[in-house]
């Protein structure tokens, strides 16, 4: 098994030390490593570190002013409308995560289990279910925006044609339905991915385990509950962490479905959109305030994924 990427203990295997594995001199190593190291450090890691630094300064446009300590963070909490939009968007990202997660895990695991046993059509279903994941989030948003259009949209037309006319509504225009619809569209978009991860996890479980339990008289359901399910813990961890990161990065999908303001009336606003608006549609001090927001988002995303990683690692150890 390859080293685990996200959840659980790292089983990274270090190269064995044969004659062929004696490291060449550092100058040669540097030639191999430097290009990737520089590209990655200069254009991603260093700017990310700088974002923290930026948040402690006063900004006038793109010109850096004096050190102001935590003032930019104060603006985030106190200045209208940020003081209302920030908790609103933050809350939405959490709902987005939990909503997506609940449906994804249930359906993704179900389809993975069903397809594992199936012989005919396995390839077709797997390819079909993953297909939406290949489309741009923005395009997925636009596609569903057209389908759910209140006047000319095919979805309401379909409801009408099967006699459910009274269910037709402006799905994305009504604050009550807009955000649940965004989450469902997202599930349509992502579902194939957790399904693939669960399928890979299922395939990695040796057949003997289930066989042994069956010989002992366990039913299919008991095998699933007591053997398969616990062995999938690391996959649950990975699915949860990746879904969390993606949920807090969501941007294009909501932009296309609900616009840059996350309408109607902020009902679908998320941190990604708020960050964009703060940085590029804000006032003269936008860079400082947006950097403070970036720091808050970074701590949330990275902090929660690290805690989750540690937590799933512990569960897994408890099971071993």
């Amino acid at each position, binding site marked *: *098994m390859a080293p*685990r*990427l*996200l959840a659980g203990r790292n089983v990274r295997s270090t190269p064995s030390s*044969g004659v*062929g594995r004696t*490291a*060449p001199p550092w100058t*040669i*190593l540097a*030639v*191999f*490593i430097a*290009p*990737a*190291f520089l*590209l*990655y450090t200069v*254009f*991603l*890691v260093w700017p*990310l570190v700088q*974002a923290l630094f*930026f948040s402690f300064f006063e900004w006038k446009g*793109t010109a850096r002013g004096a050190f102001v300590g935590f003032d930019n963070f104060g603006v985030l909490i106190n200045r209208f409308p940020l003081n209302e939009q920030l908790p609103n968007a933050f809350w939405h990202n959490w709902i987005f995560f939990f909503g997506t997660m609940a449906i994804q895990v249930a359906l993704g695991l179900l389809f993975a289990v069903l397809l594992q046993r*199936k012989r005919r*059509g396995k390839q077709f*279903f*797997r*390819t*079909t*279910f*993953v297909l939406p994941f*290949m*489309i*741009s*989030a923005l*395009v997925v948003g*636009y596609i*569903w925006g057209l*389908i759910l259009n209140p006047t*000319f949209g095919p979805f309401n*037309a379909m409801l009408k044609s099967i006699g459910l006319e009274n269910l037709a509504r402006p799905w994305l225009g009504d604050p009550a339905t807009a955000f649940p619809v965004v989450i469902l569209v997202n599930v*349509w978009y992502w579902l194939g991915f957790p399904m693939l991860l669960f399928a*890979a996890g299922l*395939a*990695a479980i040796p057949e003997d385990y289930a066989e042994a339990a069956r010989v002992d008289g366990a039913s299919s359901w008991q095998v699933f509950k007591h053997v398969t399910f616990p062995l999938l813990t690391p996959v649950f961890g990975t699915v949860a*962490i990746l879904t969390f990161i993606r949920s807090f*990065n969501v*941007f*294009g999908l909501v932009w*296309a479905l609900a616009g840059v303001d996350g309408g109607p009336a902020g009902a679908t606003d998320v941190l990604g959109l708020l*960050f964009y608006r703060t*940085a*590029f549609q804000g006032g003269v001090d936008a860079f400082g305030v947006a*950097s403070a927001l970036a720091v808050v988002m*970074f701590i949330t*995303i*990275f902090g929660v*994924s690290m805690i989750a990683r540690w937590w799933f690692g512990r569960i897994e150890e408890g099971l071993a």
Partner: protein
Amino acid sequence: MTFTRGMATNTQAKRKEKAASAAIAVLLWTYAAIVIAPLLLIVFNSMRPSREIFKDPIALPSAINFDSYIKAWNEANFSDYFVNSVTITTASVVLATSVSVLAAYALGRYTFRGSGFLSVFFLSGLLLPFRLAILPLFILLDNLGLVDTRTGLILVYAATGVPFSVFILSAFFRQLPDELNEAARIDGAGEFTIFGRVMLPLVRPGLATVAVFQFVPLWNDFFFPLVLLRSTDKWTLPVGMTRFFGEFQTDWSTLFAGIIITTLPLVILFLVATKQIIAGLTAGIGKM
């Protein structure tokens, strides 16, 4: 399934199994329909004039007609967007894969001072939310004169590809047997010859996985070009989409054609290279 306990239970079990597999088929087909129906609808409506779509949004095209594609391509700048997307994505993938395969070789084959740190340093990139670096990145590119250039975007994109590529490719290098280096060294080959002549050809499947898998998120990305590119003639397909949807909002036929032009290359890539993309998506979780 279960041990037979007499004929009666046997036929009963068989009937039960048949009902179960029918239920499974219904479930799978229903979800397949939910995935496919919206996509088919787009394909059909892209070939129908807008006024017909408005009259009846769910119908088959009366004739095969590509007028809306020609309109999207010529009038809505999709020719520019498409070429930009191809150029920027391809250049980024080539650059990221080239630098990553070098680093992955050193990290996958050898242990040396700092190799553990470097591996973790590259690996951590898989979890970092890099979009949050956009403001410092903007200032950096501005200082280098690279804002609103394709080169600037390519450098950023290539950098985002490094963590995943190094991760996958070093796993490939690690699996190659030691004897290869030994034999080559005895023959007097230098490190670069061993890499280029012996190792590189053996990790070709890894290169394919990495290259194909990076293509998808870069082709689809919307955030970086939205911020880093100003001139519309440099825009990629996703950013172009935002302008397109404003200008053509009453011309659904063209909108649908634009969606297809943007999406089709990736659908084809996915169908041709399903294996590589699935391997990329499930990297690190056992085997499929």
